[in-house]
């Protein structure tokens, strides 16, 4: 620990409640707690604490809490404590600052500045407990041509589709960045829910091929673990061009996370850093992208939809327009608040744009150009609740990707130190003793609970609007009103201000 930096969080123990069971000591991979035999009591070293709350949650008498340190430099609105500490940290190490999970900075959250409509008097709300409420979504190219066979019968020319029971999928998290047990939980939950999880760029462990019908396999710039069986096993193939947390940046999985199993799955040597280049070295244009899309389609007999995932950046609408013409079936857009196992802090906190604005501009652009039906749109990058899902769909998305919410459901407490690899919750780690802390039976159940609860809420919200099908909500921006947004923001979002009628 840097001598310049006072610990940001402090472990506070209530001595009246602590029974000295030492559960906190046994459960902390950062070795914060220990029992002092001379003092005959538990003591804690806050400098090592990452505020993951493992000890707080497991303490049987609730004797522990973690509080934000009140230690402060002279108050300065420009040079805040964290800003100063980051300078100290870099002065001590000479390194690029690394962070994990999504951008925590106080940028506007447009979801929270958008309000939903409900039916009153002139159009009745619908009770989802008494009447059918359709949340099934099909993702893929919806446009098809009318072609008849020799006998005049219609031929099915519909492109391959993904069927989701609810407009929610688990977004890409690679095996390597997250543990085997976390992957198993996601795979099992997606299967039970009738939706999909995403392998991320780390390949697919052979044990999980059985969940193939609910797996989206990713092809990223590092091409880790990509081979024929992998592509054939997935229900869809996702080409990852970018990630919301670190647009324009590749990936770097440290060698210590490349265990024997990860090495076999990724098809790279054990213990060697796994570097994903920033670009795909064979893609420098939409035409190049089209070649990869059709290579993947050709190798899987045109049976699977191909997703192209991009980070939400300034020019995202034009990029999406190109992708919609490139042969892709689905565009996934990842907003600037999207999570990550590790990203350079400056990139994570300063690059990209909010998903709400990106989604609205992409949907509008594709509609204007008459190519919206060429593709489905999936959005991710901090979808935090069912209300966010409903708002995203009303802004024009076909479905949402969730990952931060999913890892939270599994136990993550957003301590944002995934990059260290010592996740006390057994999620973002490859250390066997830590991985076993995540029982996939429990984690899968919690994931299923979360998404089921959200789906119930989506049905309730839709019913309130008098809408009985997710299809009728998609792009229905009249169901949205902005509060506290300026003209430009309203124009980009394509919504009216609260108080404005039709």
């Amino acid at each position: 620990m840097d001598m310049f930096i006072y610990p940001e969080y402090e472990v506070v123990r209530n001595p009246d409640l602590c029974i000295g069971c030492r559960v906190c000591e046994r459960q902390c991979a950062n070795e914060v707690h220990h029992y002092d035999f001379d003092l005959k009591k538990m003591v804690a070293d806050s400098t090592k604490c990452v505020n993951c709350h493992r000890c707080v949650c497991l303490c049987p008498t609730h004797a522990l809490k973690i509080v934000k340190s009140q230690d402060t430099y002279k108050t300065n609105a420009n040079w805040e404590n964290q800003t100063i500490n980051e300078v100290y940290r870099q002065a001590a190490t000479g390194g690029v600052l690394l962070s994990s999970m999504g951008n925590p900075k106080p940028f506007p959250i447009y979801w929270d500045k958008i309000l939903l409509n409900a039916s009153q008097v002139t159009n009745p709300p619908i009770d989802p407990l008494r009447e059918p409420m359709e949340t099934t979504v099909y993702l893929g190219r919806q446009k098809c041509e009318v072609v008849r066979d020799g006998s005049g019968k219609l031929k099915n020319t519909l492109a391959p589709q993904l069927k989701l029971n609810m407009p929610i999928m688990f977004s890409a998290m690679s095996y390597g960045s997250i543990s085997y047990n976390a992957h198993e939980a996601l795979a099992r939950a997606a299967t039970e829910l009738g939706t999909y999880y995403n392998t991320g760029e780390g390949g697919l462990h052979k044990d999980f091929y059985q969940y193939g019908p609910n797996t989206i396999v990713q092809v990223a710039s590092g091409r880790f673990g990509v081979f024929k069986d992998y592509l054939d096993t997935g229900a869809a193939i996702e080409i990852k061009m970018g990630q919301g947390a670190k647009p324009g940046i590749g990936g770097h999985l440290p060698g210590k996370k490349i265990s024997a199993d990860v090495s076999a799955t990724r098809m790279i040597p054990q213990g060697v850093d796994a570097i994903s280049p920033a670009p795909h070295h064979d893609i420098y244009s939409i035409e190049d992208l089209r070649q990869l899309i059709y290579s993947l389609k050709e190798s899987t007999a045109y049976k699977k939809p191909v997703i192209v995932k991009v980070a939400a950046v300034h020019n995202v609408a034009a990029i999406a327009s190109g992708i919609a013409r490139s042969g892709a079936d689905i565009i996934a857009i990842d907003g600037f608040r999207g999570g990550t196992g590790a990203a350079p802090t400056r990139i994570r906190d300063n690059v990209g744009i909010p998903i709400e604005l990106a989604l609205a501009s992409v949907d509008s652009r594709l509609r204007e150009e008459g190519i919206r039906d060429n593709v489905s749109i999936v959005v991710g990058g901090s979808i935090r609740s069912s209300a966010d899902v409903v708002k995203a769909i009303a802004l024009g998305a076909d479905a949402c990707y969730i990952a931060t919410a999913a890892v939270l459901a599994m136990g993550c407490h957003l301590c944002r130190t995934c990059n260290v690899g010592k996740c006390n919750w057994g999620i973002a780690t490859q250390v066997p003793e830590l991985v076993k802390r995540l029982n996939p039976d429990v984690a899968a159940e919690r994931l299923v609970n979360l998404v089921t609860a959200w789906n119930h809420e989506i049905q309730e919200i839709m019913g309130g609007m008098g809408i009985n099908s997710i299809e009728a909500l998609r792009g229905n921006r009249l169901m949205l009103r902005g509060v506290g947004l300026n003209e430009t923001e309203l124009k980009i979002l394509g919504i009216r201000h609260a108080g404005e009628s039709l």
Partner: protein
Amino acid sequence: MKRIYVNEQWCLGCHLCEYECAFANSGMTDMAKALKGKEIHPNIRVEDGTDGIHFAVNCRHCSDPICVRSCIAGALSRTEDGMVQIDKSKCVGCFTCVLVCPYGAIMPDADGHAAQKCELCTRNLCGEPNCVKHCPNRAIVYEDRG
């Protein structure tokens, strides 16, 4: 009958079950009051292996319990549904049961006068085994496996 089973694959060796057991059988409603500053005598014990293996051991409620057969005072018996129980008022503290139990699941109680063992939290206010209820990783389960 339903028994407590342990899946060592998920046992973290956190030892919470020991404290939850001691609390459950303390007769008190406040854990800190019940256990603070005291040595605990739980009916469940976590064995910690050297290679990262942990296993919470308690009474298996054997179908032919050697402890019941060895009890000279008739304190140990098997209920109709198969739970092995102890009547401490009959126990003379010979601890033959402690010696014969192949699992080490019976031990002298806190004052050393009688034996104690897991009775599936049927004799306290928990209603269901407290170790199972509080296992953070579902390593200890309460199931009928026939």
